């Protein structure tokens, strides 16, 4: 058999934990090979071993049949292994070109970087694989999808034959995902081999040839994708049956909780990004906001939560005007929010889980009295939430930083839901989480709905929107252009609406 990469019986330990325990994965030349496992199963670790960032305690790595020792990324590069990391390895203030050439820069006679040559080469590569990146753009100014392509270009520029993608689609919009799949196919056509880590079983079914499953650091086995289905993959991975279609009874919406009228919001550059938006969310319903990233969703959420000033229009919560109140006032009026970026906005990573649980309520009774904190109350509360929301952490005193993404997310959701807000805004609540965790979170959202909360779900995952929402508001160019019911539409139709076509017709039909 012709293997591009073989990782045999790999063992990697971290203090107190065996992240990889005797795992084997073999990548055939020219295939796309999925690596599947729950959060914390050890996927990233395994790939970091292959890329030379970690040294395994045991095991053997072969490249094209030859045993190799990969002690640093340079060696991996030389062996033709490139990696697109889960958290992008891009230097933000640098341009695309600078990021790509970093570490292997072409030089001219005077020791100066030969940017022109580099740019040309990058342009060529970009054209060949249909990547469409602008070599002169700054990383901080391009979309996440573009950044990912820069990561891909980085590996291609270094002549990678084997590409590792660590959860590439977690951060992409559906459109971008489709484009990425096209790019991967183009890569395979050019003779490259790919290892793809993803939690999205549909993607595996769509593009992968084979799939290796790991669970809690142990290899479970490798299956041919053509001979399996998503249900089997899921149960292999989790070790039990997983329910995909979220069970729920029909919504019984009551009073209007959130009512937005003719909202205009500007971003930092003083460009209107929300332009005359109208939206209503009633108690007992989940309204999903569908839309391509960058159509004003973030600004909408920031406006509701008070993080950005509203230019004009009004936001009412159960009839009370909350437009341009401070974030704290808005929170106190009954808005809960699961933010998109949990590390930046959701948690103080250096605080313990317990302290994070009271991030909005620390100043209220019983967590503090007369400005003096009561740690007993705080940690009691934290223990209760950890219990209730199945947050896996050694203790409530553990720093949030040490928790896996899924568990961090569960803690945030627990915190927000526990406050019993009238309105719960969930932005990308399941990004990067495994199917088990996703199932749990969706169930929680629906439970809350059934308790009579109004829920606004913002997501780029059409699946999620279709599965969880009772009503879908499609956002395009700063406005809600359509209101549809999930059972009365298809992903295709939604996709078209999101792309802005038939704006008029859709707008008319939905009103």
């Amino acid at each position, binding site marked *: 058999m012709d293997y591009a990469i073989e990782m045999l019986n790999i063992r990697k330990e971290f203090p107190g934990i065996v992240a990889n325990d005797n795992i084997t994965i073999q990548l055939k030349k020219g295939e796309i090979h999925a690596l599947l496992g729950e959060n914390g199963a050890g996927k990233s670790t395994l790939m970091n071993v292959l890329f030379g960032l970690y040294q395994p305690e045991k095991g053997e790595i072969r490249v094209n049949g030859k045993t190799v020792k990969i002690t640093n990324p340079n060696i991996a590069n030389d062996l033709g292994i490139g990696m697109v990391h889960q958290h992008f390895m891009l230097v933000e203030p640098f341009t695309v070109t600078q990021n790509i050439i970093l570490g292997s820069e072409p030089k001219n006679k005077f020791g100066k970087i030969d940017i022109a040559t580099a740019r040309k080469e990058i342009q060529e590569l970009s054209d060949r694989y249909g990547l469409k990146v602008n070599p002169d753009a700054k990383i901080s100014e391009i979309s996440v999808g573009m950044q990912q392509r820069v990561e891909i270009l980085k590996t291609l520029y270094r002549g990678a034959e084997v590409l590792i993608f660590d959860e590439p689609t977690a951060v992409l919009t559906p459109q971008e995902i489709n484009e990425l799949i096209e790019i991967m196919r183009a890569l395979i056509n050019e003779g490259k081999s790919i290892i793809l880590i993803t939690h999205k079983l549909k993607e595996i079914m769509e593009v992968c040839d084979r799939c290796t499953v790991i669970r809690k650091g142990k290899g479970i086995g490798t299956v041919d994708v053509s001979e399996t289905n998503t249900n089997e993959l899921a149960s292999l991975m989790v070790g039990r049956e997983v329910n995909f279609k979220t069970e729920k009874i029909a919504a019984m919406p009551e009073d209007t909780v959130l009512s937005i009228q003719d909202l205009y919001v500007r971003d930092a550059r003083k460009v209107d990004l929300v332009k005359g938006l109208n939206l209503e969310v009633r108690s007992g319903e989940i309204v999903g906001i569908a839309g391509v990233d960058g159509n004003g969703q973030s600004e909408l959420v920031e406006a509701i939560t008070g*993080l950005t000033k509203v230019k004009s229009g009004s936001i009412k919560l159960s009839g009370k005007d909350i437009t341009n109140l401070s974030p704290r006032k*808005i*929170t106190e009026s009954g808005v809960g929010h699961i*933010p998109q970026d949990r590390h930046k*906005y*959701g948690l*103080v990573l250096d*605080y313990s889980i317990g302290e994070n649980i009271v991030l*909005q309520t620390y100043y209220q009774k019983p967590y*503090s009295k007369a400005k003096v904190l009561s740690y007993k109350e705080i940690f009691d509360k934290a223990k209760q939430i950890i219990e209730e929301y199945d947050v896996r952490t050694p203790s409530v005193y553990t720093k949030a930083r040490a928790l896996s993404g899924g568990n961090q997310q569960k803690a945030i959701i627990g915190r927000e839901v526990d406050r019993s807000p009238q309105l719960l805004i969930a932005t990308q609540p399941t990004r990067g989480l495994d199917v088990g965790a996703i199932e749990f979170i969706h169930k929680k959202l629906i439970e809350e709905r059934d308790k009579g909360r109004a829920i606004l779900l913002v997501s780029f995952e059409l699946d999620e929107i279709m599965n969880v929402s009772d009503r879908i508001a499609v956002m395009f160019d700063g406005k809600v252009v359509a209101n549809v019911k999930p059972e009365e539409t298809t992903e295709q139709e939604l996709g078209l609406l999101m792309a802005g076509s038939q704006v008029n017709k859709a707008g008319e039909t939905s009103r």
Partner: protein
Amino acid sequence: MTSNNKLFGVLVPVISVIIGLLAGAVIMLLSGHNPVEGYAALWAGAFGDSYTIGETIRRTTPLILTGLAVAFAFKTGLFNIGAEGQVIVGWLAAVWVGLAIDAPMIIHLPLAILAGAAAGGLWGFLPGLLKAKLGVHEVIITIMMNYIALFVTNEIIRNVLTEQETTTGTIADTASLASDWLQSITFYSRVHYGILIALFAAFIMWFIIERTTYGYELKSVGFNSHASNYAGMNVSKNIILSMVIGGAFAGLAGAMEGLGTYGTISVMSGFTNLGFDGIAVALLGSNNAFGVVLAGLLFGVLKEGAGEMPTAAGVPTELVDIIIALIIFFVASSYIIRWALLRFKKEGK
């Protein structure tokens, strides 16, 4: 693991101090001095009799306070290089009130102390404000504010508090922290009640940071201002508050000098160094109130003891600066000490 951490928390500074002193001994040997004599002199200079003990305490007092000033700002992720200037204005304000007001002690003394704290707080307010509202780096502003404090204070001493004199008159007894009783039991050292204020301030800092919602907010903003903003905290307010409280501690340090040690303020031709030493004290005390007290004491002991070294052993006082610097290095590099300790433990097993 936790017990290990606690143990290391104590061991690391202790080992650092020991290595620092050993290094000092080596330097003395290399430069032709007798380390035993040198350290005997150091000891005598700091603890030799009741007088030196009194002076050691006196010297420790403002160091604790400037250490707290820097540590407090650090807790909010701010670097207060401006303790120096805050000390100076605090000193000025305290003496000013001590001179200008006629009131019974129960009013006068607290008022003078508060004036010092308020002046220091004000001096921290501007950098805090500029940082919070305009994002201007607090390090530059506090450095600039140090110079402004120095020159303006000199001007006020010369032209407002006196008529072209270099030293003001002595403050009223009702504003003085000095104590005949303390002095009499310490052979007329200048130890004064300020040490109680410094210890109380350390307690206050501990309480604010660890026990109150203010502390919770301040630390939260220091760790992650985005998340704090998200959670409804007023990030600007907390940045300003942190600089103001830090400044107030430094101002108190100045008040200690003005109301306790000297009873006057003089035109200064350079900085007092209390603020700069405060940075080292804060860092050595790992920015925690209790640590700052101990670090302040260590500084006080070494600096006071150093005075005896040239006369008794011919060793230049600067040796102590070298030792302190080395101790700070070792504490900062605790990683290597921890690593060595772990190795040691493993091999012992």
